């Protein structure tokens, strides 16, 4: 799965947690969940759990800690998909 495909699948997962529509519409590889989208760490857990389900992968604690922006999240998803 390429980066753009992953971003498209991430958008509906992230959307319910973003209040600022303009920030959401501007989502790209460099978007940071906390600083750009104003998502708190508790909601980030829900996003990670939804990512696990959507991609049928398991995210460990170490990976979770890196999933703060789209770029790292995409890289982790790609790695986990490759391991399957």
């Amino acid at each position: 799965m390429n980066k753009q495909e992953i971003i498209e699948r991430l958008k509906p997962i992230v959307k319910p947690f973003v209040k600022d529509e303009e920030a959401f519409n501007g989502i790209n590889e460099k978007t940071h969940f906390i600083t750009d989208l104003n998502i708190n760490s508790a909601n980030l857990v829900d996003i990670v759990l939804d990512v696990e389900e959507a991609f049928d992968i398991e995210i460990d604690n170490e990976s979770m800690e890196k999933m703060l922006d789209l770029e790292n999240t995409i890289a982790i998803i790609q790695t986990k998909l490759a391991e399957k």
Partner: protein
Amino acid sequence: MTKQEIISKLPYSKPFLFVDEILSIDENRVEGTFIFDENLDFYKGHFKDNPVTPGVILTETMAQIGLVCLGIYLNEGKEIKNIGFTSSEVEFMKPIYPNEKVTVISEKVYYRFGKLKCKVKMLNEKNEEVCSGVLAGMIL
């Protein structure tokens, strides 16, 4: 961990401790009780000359029993420094008056990455549902 040890590890004290007794606990579920003493300070003002337990206090009671007690149990042997209440979605059905005893029953939805999310309900002494909802808290 015994039920008494869990209560002793709670980070609250009077007048903000809302757990009297844990009736049962395992990794998925906790059940506990609390009696709202008529001398609790908030009854003086909620409401004027008409004491009723505030909804926020009922929510807090559900969180202390349903999230914090279960969280302590799930982290047996580990030190928890700071915790935070991260979300609550609660509906209220019945009022609780001074000296009523409530029972809180909480079922774990998940505990992942330090966040505990539970479905929680509170019953009065007649076993009627007082309030229920979904609460979540996190180790910070």
